């Protein structure tokens, strides 16, 4: 009872004293001067924070994850590699617990997990590290055209060094053709890299079948499972993967941390990309960031408990969103396979509507067109181009990301705002509301 009075008074006094637009003790550089009831940024004025439907770009940190992390910023701030005192020991213990939590989610052993700074770093280690290690005998890499930019860029880097890379095309539904994969494997193939769930269209590749093919031809199989972790059940033995990239901030954990799964039986070796003191079994030197790693572990443990509940709910919300939009608009196309997809990623194209204007009018909903990594350029996304989507349909694609914290009201509001904006754009263009 006393603690409740304490927290209430503490909260009241602190929130009253906070100066509205400047936090004097904070070092935040983006000081937005806000009049009391609206935000003005980049020429856009909105009255409240947009509703967040961009879960593939990143996900909010779950309060239970934050609760696990804070002690490691406040009091248990030791370096886990310090061997001589309590601070190091407790920090190391926390890292090992987190390692087990991550391993349990993918049915691996804790000894097979290496912590890195994110899935991009894991992809770099996997693609470049494996090929450099086996460069005497293996000269060929197979990947797909819809991979994440970091995998494609690493492959391009390898091509410049003289390696051979095959970029497998995808069918119209975003899945690769297994016979083409079999045909592309040669005796000098050193790695097959196929991402589990695509970040732009949400399509789930046939992982077990690819794993079987790789086992048959004895080629290491790497997958970027950043979007798949915690959303679909992952089993490294069923999939027969040798390497798997995992990301913390896609499973409601902190940004800046990721994990690389490296199989021990049969052992896959990589050349380290970060040299130094030999931390993380020499694969990734550098101080392991204990709070971030603890956060990722807590997020993975939560994901294991909540996966079934989240999945049912996200599917229900996705159906509500799609049916709501389709009830009012025609010419709505879902990009990517409808059967083999993760429900929380809905990539829609609207016919006869210009993509940039659609996004500019949807300022109260935080969505994206194309992936966050490629949104700087004006070109339509390469993933949609690989699917064979027409140029103009590719330009109007919007990706709705639904997650654990999305509510039915948010979906209804997003439907209302999208339908209004699309109808407004159709009316302006033709002077009449185009119906067909």
């Amino acid at each position, binding site marked *: 009872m006393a603690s409740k009075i304490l927290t209430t008074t503490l909260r009241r006094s602190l929130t009253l004293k906070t100066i509205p637009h400047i936090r004097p003790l904070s070092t935040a550089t983006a000081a937005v001067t806000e009049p009391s009831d609206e935000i003005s940024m980049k020429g856009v004025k909105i009255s409240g924070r947009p509703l967040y439907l961009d879960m593939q770009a990143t996900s909010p940190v779950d309060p239970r994850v934050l*609760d696990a992390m804070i002690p490691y910023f406040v009091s248990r701030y030791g370096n886990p590699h310090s061997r001589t005192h309590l601070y190091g020991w407790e920090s190391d213990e926390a890292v090992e617990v987190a390692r087990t939590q991550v391993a349990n989610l993918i049915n691996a052993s804790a000894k097979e997990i290496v912590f890195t700074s994110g899935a991009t770093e894991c992809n770099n280690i996997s693609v470049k590290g494996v090929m450099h290690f086996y460069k005497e005998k293996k000269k060929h890499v197979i990947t797909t055209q819809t991979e994440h930019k970091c995998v494609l860029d690493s492959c391009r880097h390898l091509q410049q060094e003289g390696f051979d890379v095959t970029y497998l095309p995808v069918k119209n539904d975003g899945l690769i053709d297994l016979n083409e994969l079999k045909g592309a494997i040669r005796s000098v193939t050193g790695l097959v890299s196929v991402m589990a769930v695509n970040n732009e269209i949400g399509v789930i590749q046939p992982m077990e079948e690819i794993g079987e093919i790789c086992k048959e031809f004895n080629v290491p199989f790497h997958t970027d499972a950043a979007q798949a972790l915690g959303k679909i059940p992952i089993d490294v033995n069923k999939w027969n993967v040798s390497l798997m990239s995992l990301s913390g901030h896609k499973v409601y954990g902190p940004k800046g941390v990721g994990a690389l799964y490296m199989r021990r039986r049969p052992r896959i070796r990589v050349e380290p990309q970060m040299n130094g003191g030999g931390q993380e079994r020499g694969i990734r030197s550098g101080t392991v960031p204990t709070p971030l790693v603890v956060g990722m572990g807590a997020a993975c443990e939560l994901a294991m408990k909540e996966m079934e509940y989240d999945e049912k709910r996200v599917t229900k919300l996705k159906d509500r969103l799609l049916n709501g939009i389709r009830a009012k608009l025609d010419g709505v196309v879902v990009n990517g396979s409808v059967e083999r997809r993760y429900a929380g990623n809905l990539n829609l194209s609207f016919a006869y509507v210009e993509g940039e204007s659609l996004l500019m009018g949807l300022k109260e909903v935080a969505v994206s067109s194309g992936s966050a990594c490629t949104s700087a350029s004006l070109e339509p996304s390469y993933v949609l181009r690989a699917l064979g989507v027409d140029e103009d349909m590719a330009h109007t694609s919007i990706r709705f990301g639904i997650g654990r914290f999305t509510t039915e009201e948010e979906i209804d509001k997003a439907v209302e705002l999208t339908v209004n904006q699309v109808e407004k754009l159709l009316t302006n263009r033709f002077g009449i509301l185009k119906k067909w």
Partner: protein
Amino acid sequence: MATAVPPPCRSEILSLFRSILRSARDFPDYNIREYTKRRTIESFRDNKTLSDPSTIATVFSDGNSQLQVAKRQAVVYSLFAPNIKSIMDIKH
């Protein structure tokens, strides 16, 4: 060997339920608040049919630690609440 912890009685469970819902109200963030309310209601409803006393005791103590997490995080989120609220809290 420790004596078995007696399972919680109905009023204790109801009190825990109400406390978690009360702490959910204190979150300034719209999404977290709605999630906490919804998840609490659904998980208490799913666990209603449990009969084994030791399972009930475990789940109850787990619920208690979740309550403590929620109370702490409600304070933290309030301390750093953004000045402008979410659109969902303003319209309607």
